């Protein structure tokens, strides 16, 4: 029956229809897997994975959808971790308010870094964000509230809304999952909004966007703050999961790691960074037990990705015959 109705439709829409149906199917499968996952995997590992997946998606908002390569996203991730940890531990705020403090702090940092970085383009943008994030690293090293090399330790998870005890790892997992889903929804809504469309037009042709009368700088700054805030959401939650915030999260290696996750999964795809994050976190977990240093593997994967499959896993899948048959399209 449905085939008859769909038969005369234009091929373009039919394809889009197939894509959205396949997408919906994948979405439901993914959700079910995420909900039952704690029965099969170590919850802390899953929570770490979700935090990094959200971080990578937030980063991709900037690189994939606006075409800006930030080399300093650790500032927002790690900065928010510090803010949340401080708010929860020293001010005694509840976890949800603590995370909000982290998000607000990251957005503030994003406003400052973005304000300077958008004054230059391309390669310079990357170098400026890297330099400013290194500055923030030194600030965290010396500031008193971060406790320098020790970091903020034994951060209490507390009770969500004063009711749900987050010290139970099951409760904590579903809290992290909820935050992750909210974050993904915000990202999805954002890139499909008129604002997101203008960002894509800036990515494709900045001069033309200017000539159409858009204030490109303002849109770029908006995207930067949005990306920083979402990275902060991931960082704040991570501080609660691991119950500490340290210098590792604000160091430049972390900025490199999130780039790798995005590149590996697929720049400019909504779900690619999730897979990229999954792979990188799994790999690191696996290598942590061996003597072999993670940096070498990360570096080689980076080089191979750039040389051989720049579209990333999900991007390659979309471009493959199977992907196209399922109705996906991949531009760029």
């Amino acid at each position, binding site marked *: 029956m449905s085939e008859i109705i769909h038969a005369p439709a234009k091929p373009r829409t039919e394809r889009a229809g197939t894509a959205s149906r396949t997408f919906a199917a994948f979405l439901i499968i993914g959700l079910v897997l995420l909900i039952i996952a704690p029965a099969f995997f170590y919850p802390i590992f899953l929570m770490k994975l979700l935090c990094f997946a959200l971080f990578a998606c937030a980063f991709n908002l900037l690189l994939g959808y606006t075409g800006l*390569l930030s080399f300093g996203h650790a500032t927002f991730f790690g900065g928010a971790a510090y803010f949340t940890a401080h708010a929860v531990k020293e001010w005694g705020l509840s976890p949800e308010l603590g995370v909000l403090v982290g998000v607000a702090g990251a957005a503030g940092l994003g406003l400052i870094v973005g304000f*300077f970085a958008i*004054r*230059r*383009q*391309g*390669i*310079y943008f*990357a*170098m*400026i964000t*890297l*330099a*400013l994030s*290194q*500055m923030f690293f*030194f*600030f965290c*090293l*010396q500031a008193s509230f971060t406790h320098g090399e020790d970091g903020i330790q034994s951060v209490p998870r507390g009770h969500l809304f004063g009711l749900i005890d987050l010290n139970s790892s099951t409760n904590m997992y579903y809290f992290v999952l909820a935050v992750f889903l909210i974050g993904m929804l915000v990202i999805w809504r954002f890139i499909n909004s008129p604002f997101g469309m203008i960002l894509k037009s800036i990515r494709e042709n900045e001069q033309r966007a200017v000539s159409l009368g858009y204030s490109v700088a303002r849109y770029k700054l908006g995207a930067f703050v949005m990306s920083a805030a979402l990275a902060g959401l991931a960082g704040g939650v991570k501080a609660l999961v691991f119950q500490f915030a340290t210098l590792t999260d604000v160091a*430049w290696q972390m900025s*490199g790691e999130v*780039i790798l996750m995005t*590149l590996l999964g697929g720049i400019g795809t909504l779900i690619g960074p999730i897979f990229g994050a999954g792979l990188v976190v799994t790999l690191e977990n696996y290598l942590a037990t061996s003597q*072999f*240093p*993670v*940096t*070498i*593997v*990360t*570096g*080689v*994967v*980076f*080089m191979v*990705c*750039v*040389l051989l499959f*720049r579209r990333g896993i999900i991007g390659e899948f979309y471009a493959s015959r199977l992907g196209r048959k399922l109705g996906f399209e991949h531009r760029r």
Partner: protein
Amino acid sequence: MTMIFGIPLQAFLGQLLIGLINGSFYALLSLGLAVIFGLLRVINFAHGAQYMLGAFVAMLLLQYFGINYWFALILAPLIVGLFGAIIERTMLSRLYDLDPLYGLLFTFGLALTIEGTFRYLYGSSGQPYTVPPQLAGGINLGFMFLPIYRGWVVVISLAACIGTWLLIEKTKLGAYLRAATENPVLVQAFGVNVPLLLTLTYGLGAALAAFAGVLAAPVYQVSPLMGSNIIIVVFAVVVVGGMGSIMGAILTGYMLGIAEGLTKVFYPEASNIVIFVIMAIVLLIRPAGLFGRDA
């Protein structure tokens, strides 16, 4: 004791010298970055790793072959330059048609790989490299004590900077380089082998970084981390100077090195970040950089 702005003269001059030495390294490294970027349109993130390689090659040459500092000063840049040229020919050259960001990401991966390998083999802690006997000791200048090696570093790196500048601005090879920067297709049509020129340029840039690395070996410790520590600062130097001019890169390197040294005297807490602060101020006032042509 003589005082300057309430600071003992000796402390002041001592920090000024350290600033000048750091400035020499910043200048050498940002010069190499500018040369590579000018022609290849690639920001060489591996520049710090190549600097570290230079220091390590010098140390290993001494340890295993007994080759002294003076030969290492020539051999290490040659070896690292050759390594750079091979990397460029086999891998980096495939990325020229793409967005320049891919070049940055590739060299970032390269830097991680090199650094990781050396950390795996030699550990994170630094190893000393003794000052060559000809340059050991120091001279008492009356107002301060000048270690000869440090004076040598300042003089020789200034000479290397000026030499590179002359090579690019005054020789025929340099003219080809500059022409290929402006319009590679046209230069190729005139019968110049542009791909070879690109390989040579990357090799030269890597060799310059390695040269700085050998010079740095006796001043700092030879450590796998020395490259990534300095490269981010050098990026800030490059943002301040703008990569449009070779001389601009050199001058900015020295200026910021000295600014950092002086901050150590007056406000030590900020000495780590002063270069980044200067970068932010320059971005506010002159977004294209002090010597930059393009934004």
